[in-house]
């Protein structure tokens, strides 16, 4: 069941409908080509040797026996990749340090986690490559390791980098540590704020590291030609970014590398960066053959970036009238083997939903012996929201106020300052809370061992660089090409916006994702940006096509272009020419393509701004089995401000997907390490993601408060939905068992332990 709450608006013909997705038939019939589906004549198979140790110094690597094995064409190590300069470049949250990145692709002096790549082989078959891996001799000096973030921060913790001095502390510490960076955001007077509070509520909470859980393992085919030209076919969230990073890691010029986008079987942030592409291309460069690498599920778990685990403390001061007057949060995040957790996002989003005059967020980015973290759906925000929304729930209970009313009373509105400075400018927060307050599920009676939880969450959403080309064919059909990978049905949304703008039927538009040599730059399909930013590029390209079509109609009628308007998919005479000619459809003008000037094409690139944030409020009912500790989710309702739902089914799917991942994060998912720092549950049988039978029908409420900065009012919809889910489930469980749960996942043993403790 889904509800849409939307404003009065002019009638749209395509936007807001639910047509079939253009990639649907190839995917359900198995002919869609994912990363692993590509092959080439003379292709070799690449395999990667991985560290069995969580932390060890590499004394030596002997590849001679592997090299001598019949069928082996090349063995590579980090020596086959150029050394990179040590410097942080690019945006702070995702600052790239290529010195780190090349060491993550292939270890050099040390291995930093179990599964860290050490060497790679290209051979005539997978089995030969596997056999060759067993012949590579690596001499390790095993070192003490550290996984947990609190343990990694201790002064006596094993150091991953002997020269890492914490950034963000003035004066800089004189001793190295595993703390890569400290950061702080603050507004108001924290002491005065807490002094004005009637009640102060505080909790310390932890979350386990989790995986994005995409179904398709990383895979690619790479070919490096003797003239230095190269091509890669890969599944990623941004083939332009894969091109840039792979070229840099191999010391190539970007123009010599063409990256083709394969269909992608899920990413959720985990496919923003390369893992196998630089290795396959380096092996191809050594052998002169195309090389294909397909990761196993175990490799995906052990070597690709997960979301970080965390340790957090949140304190909130509240008056008896329900006003939050102060809030303070400390967020410590596992970065994995190299700096760069999303703790900055966590700090910025943590208290963003609320109007709090005195607030501080402090974050720590901490390295430990796990794979380098990667983005995962609203990276950082679900984790800090879990902590904040748990304490908000406790504060509401402390003063005896309804938890949604408490949130509504403190909600941020346009003009409310954020902890990072600017004021909020967009509506939509209050509406999601009000939507749940009106929802019948919120007042439905609960039974024994059952509990209800609510939570809210904020995510920035992104804009940025996108390109789109619109080609009008002579039969009146239209091709829309963009450089944005399609993770979630964005081809359909982009085609719908093109059809709406041009005034033609949706099925006349064929949307494609073009490779890096065939369209202008498109940034990652991440940050919920594609329908917003690439959508603007598509609409602008369509407007240019319309101007072109009007000029051609004017030529046909022998009138001025100013006397031609575009309406309902047709050029119509206007002004002094009004009524003199029958309208000309796009198809009719396209049929005269040659005589009116040749191909009808427009390409537009934008750096889209005016992004509006995403906001969601969610309700969860659970039942806890006191005998087994198992939690059953009985009801889940998610209300999200989506701006405008271009294709409501896919927007609902995004919300349901985010909620399902959040439920898994809350209840079951975690990386389990043994004493040697080895991952013991690197597979979907032991790493428990929720399946359909674990979940109720997730009910969505699409709150549509349009973004005035987008031609159709779009706000990003892919991420805000996961932000409140962890806390909504945790609050529900806490109410069901009458004890505050402070650690995720709330697996049955933890529930039983909590049940056996004092209230």
């Amino acid at each position, binding site marked *: 069941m889904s509800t849409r709450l939307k404003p009065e608006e002019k009638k749209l013909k395509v936007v807001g409908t639910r047509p079939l997705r253009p990639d649907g038939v190839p995917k359900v019939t198995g002919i869609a080509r994912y990363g692993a589906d590509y092959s080439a004549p003379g292709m070799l198979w690449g395999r990667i040797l991985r560290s069995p140790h969580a932390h060890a110094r590499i004394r030596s690597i002997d590849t001679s026996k592997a090299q001598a094995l019949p069928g082996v064409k090349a063995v590579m190590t980090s020596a086959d990749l150029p050394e990179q300069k040590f410097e942080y470049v690019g945006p702070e949250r995702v600052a790239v340090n290529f010195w780190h990145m090349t060491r993550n692709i292939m270890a050099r002096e040390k291995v930093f986690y179990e599964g860290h790549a050490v060497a790679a082989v290209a051979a005539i078959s997978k089995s030969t490559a596997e056999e060759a891996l067993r012949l590579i001799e690596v001499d390790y000096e095993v070192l003490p390791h550290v996984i947990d973030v609190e343990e990694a921060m201790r002064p006596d913790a094993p150091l991953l980098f002997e020269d890492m001095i914490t950034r963000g502390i003035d004066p800089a510490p004189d001793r190295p540590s595993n703390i890569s960076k400290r950061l702080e955001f603050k507004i108001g007077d924290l002491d005065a704020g807490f002094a004005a509070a009637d009640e102060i509520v505080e909790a310390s909470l932890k979350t386990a590291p989790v995986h994005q859980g995409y179904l398709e393992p990383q895979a690619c085919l790479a070919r490096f030609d003797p003239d230095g030209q190269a091509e890669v076919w890969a599944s990623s969230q941004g083939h332009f970014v894969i091109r840039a990073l792979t070229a840099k890691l191999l010391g190539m010029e970007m123009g010599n590398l063409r990256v083709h986008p394969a269909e992608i079987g899920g990413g959720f942030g985990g496919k923003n960066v390369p893992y196998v592409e630089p290795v396959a291309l380096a092996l191809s460069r050594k052998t002169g053959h195309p090389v294909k690498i397909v990761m196993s599920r175990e490799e995906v778990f052990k070597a690709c970036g997960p979301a970080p685990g965390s340790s957090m403390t949140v304190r909130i001061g509240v008056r008896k009238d329900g006003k939050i007057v102060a809030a303070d949060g400390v967020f410590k995040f596992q970065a994995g083997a190299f700096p760069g957790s999303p703790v900055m996002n966590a700090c910025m989003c943590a208290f963003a939903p609320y109007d709090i005059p005195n607030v501080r967020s402090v974050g720590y980015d901490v390295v430990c012996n796990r794979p380098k973290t990667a983005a995962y759906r609203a990276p950082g925000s679900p984790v800090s929201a879990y902590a904040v929304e748990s304490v908000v729930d406790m504060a509401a209970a402390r003063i005896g106020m309804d938890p949604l009313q408490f949130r509504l009373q403190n909600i941020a509105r346009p003009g409310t300052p954020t902890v990072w*400075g600017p004021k909020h400018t967009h509506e939509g927060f209050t509406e999601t809370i009000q939507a749940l307050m009106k929802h019948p599920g919120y007042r439905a009676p609960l039974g024994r061992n059952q509990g209800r939880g609510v939570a809210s969450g904020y995510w920035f959403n992104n804009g940025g660089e996108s390109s789109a080309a619109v080609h009008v064919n002579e039969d009146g059909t239209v091709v829309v090409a963009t450089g944005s990978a399609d993770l979630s049905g964005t081809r359909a949304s982009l085609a719908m916006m093109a059809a709406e703008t041009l005034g033609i039927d949706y099925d006349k538009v064929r949307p494609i994702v073009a490779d890096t040599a065939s369209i202008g730059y498109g940034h990652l399909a991440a940050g919920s940006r594609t329908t917003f930013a690439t959508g603007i590029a598509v609409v602008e390209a369509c407007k240019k096509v319309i101007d072109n079509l009007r000029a051609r109609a004017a030529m046909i009628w022998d009138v001025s272009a100013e006397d031609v308007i575009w309406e309902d998919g047709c050029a119509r005479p206007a002004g002094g020419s009004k009524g003199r000619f029958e309208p000309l459809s796009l198809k009719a003008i396209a049929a005269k393509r040659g005589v009116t000037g040749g191909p009808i094409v427009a390409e537009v690139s934008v750096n889209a701004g005016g992004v509006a944030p995403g906001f969601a409020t969610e309700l969860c009912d659970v039942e806890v089995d006191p005998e087994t500790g198992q939690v059953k989710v009985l009801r889940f309702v998610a209300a999200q401000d989506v701006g405008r739902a271009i294709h409501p089914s896919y927007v609902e799917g995004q919300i349901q997907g985010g909620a399902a991942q959040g439920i898994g994060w809350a209840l079951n998912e975690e990386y389990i390490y043994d004493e040697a720092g080895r991952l013991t549950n690197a597979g979907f049988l032991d790493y428990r993601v929720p399946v359909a039978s674990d979940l109720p029908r997730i009910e969505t409420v699409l709150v549509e408060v349009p973004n005035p900065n987008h031609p159709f009012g779009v706000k990003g919809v892919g991420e805000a939905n996961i932000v409140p889910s962890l806390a909504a489930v945790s609050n529900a469980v806490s109410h069901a068992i009458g004890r505050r749960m402070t650690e995720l996942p709330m697996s049955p043993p933890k529930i039983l332990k909590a049940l056996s403790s004092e209230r």
Partner: protein
Amino acid sequence: MSRASGRVTRHGSRVAGVRTPARVVFTGDFGDRYTGGVKEFAIEAKNLRGVIKALDALYPGLGEHLEKETTVAIDGEIHEVGYYQPVRPGCEIFFIPKIEGG
């Protein structure tokens, strides 16, 4: 410093005889290594190019840092940093750390 390239003062000491400057603020500590901890400025400029140019003249290297590593909020609306962004007299500009999502 020419008028075309923007005029800058640390906030509170406005340049006399010019139109109302924009209030320019750096979020967090990301600009500290260039500015020595100064976070707030009053700048008169027509567009973001003028703001960045004026700051870079004051703190060499800061301009490139702002272009590459920040997003900008102009009167609360978040944009990618682009020279062409208009700067209204008296507006509020925050340079904030650039965000990427999942």
